[in-house]
């Protein structure tokens, strides 16, 4: 089990993946908006998204879990 975390304070601009999706290393889970930039958050682990904890418009803090991949 691996967690995809937010690296910085940001708005969740787009949720690209969905719970239950199978993902490969480097796939985009969400796109955050911060520092006037759209920053894709990629997974470093392959597997299935068992938990997707954010929705578009949410604010995430540094270290917040975005998704859990099993």
């Amino acid at each position, binding site marked *: 089990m691996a967690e995809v975390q937010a690296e*910085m*304070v940001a708005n969740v601009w787009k949720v690209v993946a969905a719970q239950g999706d199978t993902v490969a290393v480097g796939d985009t889970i969400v796109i955050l908006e911060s*520092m*006037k*930039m*759209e*920053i*894709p958050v990629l997974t470093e682990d392959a597997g299935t998204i068992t938990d997707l904890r954010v929705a578009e418009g949410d604010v995430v803090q*540094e270290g917040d879990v975005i998704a859990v991949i099993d």
Partner: protein
Amino acid sequence: MTVIDNRTATGSARALSTEEPADPRAPRIRLETLFDDGTFRPLTAEDKSGALAGSGRIEGTPAVAFASDPRVQGGAMGAAGCEAIESAYDAAVRERVPVIGIWHSGGARLAEGVESLHGVGKVFAAMTRASGVVPQISVVIGPAAGGAAYGPALTDIVIMSQGGRVFVTGPDVVKSVTGEEIDMAGLGGPEPHGRRSGVVHMVAEDDTEAVARARRLAVLLGHQGRLRQAEVSDVDMAHVLPESPRRAYDVHPLIDDLLDEPGLELHQKWAPNMVTLLGRLGGRTVGVMANNPLRLGGCLDSLSAEKAARFVRMCDAFGVPLVVIVDTPGYLPGVGQEHGGVVRRGAKLLHAFAEATVPRITLVTRKSFGGAYIAMNSRALGATRVFAWPTATIGVMGAPAAVRVLGRKKLAAVPEEERPALEARLVTEYEETVGGLDRAVELGVVDEVIKPAETRTAIARAIAEAPPARGNHGNIPL
């Protein structure tokens, strides 16, 4: 321990090896693996000192190395073993060649008491004297604990294999003092040191890969080569940038385009918003430093500034030209950053660049704003040459953000529906008068606007035309 000449050492080693069949952990075996076949010559005797030193060649490049001997007291460092390491350093400094340490040591020898501590301290002093004089590479294959932890830490580049463990005090002591329960790998293995502490520059899958990386680094730093401009052809790097200027992207493909072949990245997972990497351009070793917009939007922050500062100083100390690729929205705002010393650590990067004498070329691909603009090898800090792509914007902040501050009153005075049009007009005016790439060229802070398709040759030419230079300083592990 006695220092002996090569002939005797080779003879006695043969006698020893017939008695004891090869143990893969034996320092002699590890050193023979590190050097080109048949080139290893011991500098010290194969005895119970706990370390063996020797010289040899790596892809033909001369180098010196030493290895701890985990078969004797777990590789613990006593006075004699420390002398062996010192003799490796003496030889490396005398010959001006890289020195590589293969670490597998539990620390200072308990049985020798303060004598072993004194010996370990002398090793640290030898490492510091050699700092910036010859490249120092450490390969941590087993534990490097206690005193042995600081051996690798004082060197320029630390490679850790999967079995490597670096810590000052082990899990048992940690538990008895703080109550924290953690195993050796969790405390000081590749994961914490590669990602969180920054102690380790490179994590290798296994010992073979760790040694292979040390070999490549020794050649990159020990035999830097001459830049052959004629062999540098252009690649159109434009494909790397996304269509939207707001969209973050991974900078690695751009670096791959720039170099002859993929380089060796240092601190890949630690402070990944700044990429630091050694590779070759036109056959010559160069250091590449790049903001990575995919991580933290490419912001500079306290860790990445410190990482970059150390890299700049290492390259400068060894005469490795730098290529600095800039796409950063600025410094990362936040309480954590300020309290974490972003000012103190950011100052290290300013200092590192301002004192560097090595040729250093800047390429601004997209954004370069504020304090981060200055820190990323700006003209003011002494950049040899500053290039910008036509897509570049340079300023205190982006034009729209600047206009919202400067034109706040004007914008507030008009009805809301007219604001977007007014803002657009103010942005154009701002770019014409203050911002914009043309102004940067006019001021001389950008030398030339170049196309992505002519970048490789432009950077190669700028390095080739700059007089070679090398900083006269050590490489303190910042």
